[in-house]
């Protein structure tokens, strides 16, 4: 329990990390450092995207599976670590 806390705190403390979210399969944000509306928005959109990405990978090769999803944009990078039940989302901006 404490390790989880530490880990999450550590991730949040990294250089350039704007926010982090942990969601369960039903879409309930378990842990979030952003405000509710932003969290809900991120969760809703990224969940769908992750599903799509995963199905793409599995379509091409059924033995394959999605391990990590990184979306780089002009302003920052959104990293999504999917799992069967949970989803961790971290938003990091580049170090100038």
């Amino acid at each position, binding site marked *: *329990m404490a*390790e*989880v806390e530490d*880990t*999450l705190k*550590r*991730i949040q403390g*990294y*250089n*350039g*990390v704007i926010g982090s979210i*942990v969601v*369960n*399969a*039903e*879409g*309930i*944000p*378990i*842990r979030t450092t952003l405000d*509710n509306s932003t969290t*809900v*928005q991120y*969760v*809703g*959109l990224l969940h769908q995207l992750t599903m799509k990405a995963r199905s793409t990978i599995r379509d091409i090769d059924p033995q394959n599976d999605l*391990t*990590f999803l*990184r979306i*780089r944009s002009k302003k920052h*990078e959104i*990293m999504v*670590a*999917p*799992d069967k*039940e*949970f989803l*961790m989302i*971290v938003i*990091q901006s*580049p*170090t*100038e």
Partner: protein
Amino acid sequence: MEIVYVYTKKRSEFGRQCNFSDRPAELHVDILPDPSLAANFTVRDPCNVTMQCAEEMSEHEVNTERFESESRGINHVEGGWPKDLNPEDMEATIRYRKKVEKDEHYQNTIMQIAGLMEHCSKQNNATDIYQDFFDDEVEEEVVEESEEEPSAKTINVFRDPNEVKRTATSLSWHPDGNHKLAVAYSSLEFQKAPNDMSFDSYIWDIENHNKPEMTLKPVCPLVCLEYNPKDSHILVGGSYNGQIAYWDTRKGSQPVEMSTIEHSHRDPVYKVIWLQSKTGMDIFSASTDGQVLWWDIRKLSEPTERLVLDPSKKWNLDNALGAISLEFETTMPTKFMVGTEQGLVVSCNRKAKTPAEKIVCTYSGHHGPIYALQRNPFFPKNFLTVADWTARIWSEDIKESSIMWTKYHMAHLLDGCWSPVRPSVFFTVKMDGTLDVWDILFKQNDPTLSLKVCDEALYSIRVQDNGRYLGCGSQLGTTTLLEISSGLCTLQKNEKALVSEMFERETKREKILESRHREMRLKERSRSEQSREDEAKDADGEESTEELVARAETEFFHMLEAEKTKERNEEKERDMEKGVCEEKDFQEEHETNGVVASFTRGEISL
């Protein structure tokens, strides 16, 4: 004819079962053919039968189902809470969350994915992926122009529409847009112009080579023609009889005004140039009668100013040099240059106080009339002259000789001009119909591109302001429009600097040579004053070449004689010893060797 067959059956026999029996065929009716009916018909010969051998096809229509699409937005609302939980209830949600967090499975999963996440996060921090790499490296686009071979291709050819062909002596591009080309036609051969030769000159639209856009009808054939750079409707022409005329294209083909014969030139006007003035109506003209006259277009009855090209500065018309070309640069409005028939370039100052001071200096070096004279548009101190068999580049400061020159060609060069976009490129045309493009940065001994435009002599050439198109006029009145490759009309890197360096270098060389010559001449003079005696023995290296040659000759012959006598003596000796034939061969060999040796010895002593 009715054919009737009647069959009877008893009423009582109706309904009775059929009994079939065999019996032979009976002929009931026999209709014979009636030949008379054939008269109603004719034999059709040939019979036309249409047939089609094609696949049988059928037509089907298909319409896809309409796909209806709609734009929708998503409203994200928190969800997924279990049924019994009220999302608004803060406590309940917190409690639920805490419960999830305590779950072992949750903790393991989180640890796992957190590891991945950390790795990526650290990666991001390690390098800035948004950094601009390769900023300082200059983008080296493949400079295709420099690799491309210089070339020129003919775009259009305008022929003289008249039967009797005249020479296209002068071309002028329209000042805005460059879509029109004014060409002056005349026959420069003295008294060879046939009686029915037309006097007209034309303005061509470069798109249409069939018919000139406009005809200019002077009283006498025009030798030169120029558009007014400020007003593109006005053209001025110098004619064969010495008069100046000007046209306004809006007003028709006849000249608006012509200069009076008494005050005009006495010889054909070879060049007319527009001056840079406030009114934009001033021109000056040059002719082989030795005069340069200034005119105001609006008042062509009398020239505004006059200059006689008398090198002795006495304004004596009989001594005057005939002018064939003029040069005027708008950046230096008081100076101008005149190229003469005698091969001299005269530089003049218009604003001189006394008439005698008008002629500033002369440049000599050509053997024949200077057909073209133009300053380099980028380096006005250097100018190009085209005359006799060479083209020369001069620097204003060096009056004794040109700083650069081409080799002597096989045919006369008749016209030339600088490229308006590249300081190192100039064009010349020759009597054998070739157009030469020279790039002095690339090659100095030969033209970079030599193109045979036509079989007859090319008399004039003019480059358009963008440097890409040029027109050249030939002896039979054919004006050819050429496009040169982009390599020859785009400014290369460092070109200006390199060309200016080259000019400076050559100028310096000429200056040094000039000063050395002056020194030598001074020495000569002083020496000849001191002693007129035996200077020949003084091996100063100052001896004239003829003396040197004479000395060398006498020495050589002396040595030859000496050798010959020696050989003959030796021969006599050897004859006595051995056989004659062998010796003769040996002697000849020895003699030739000996002769060669004495020759070389003679050379070294020189």
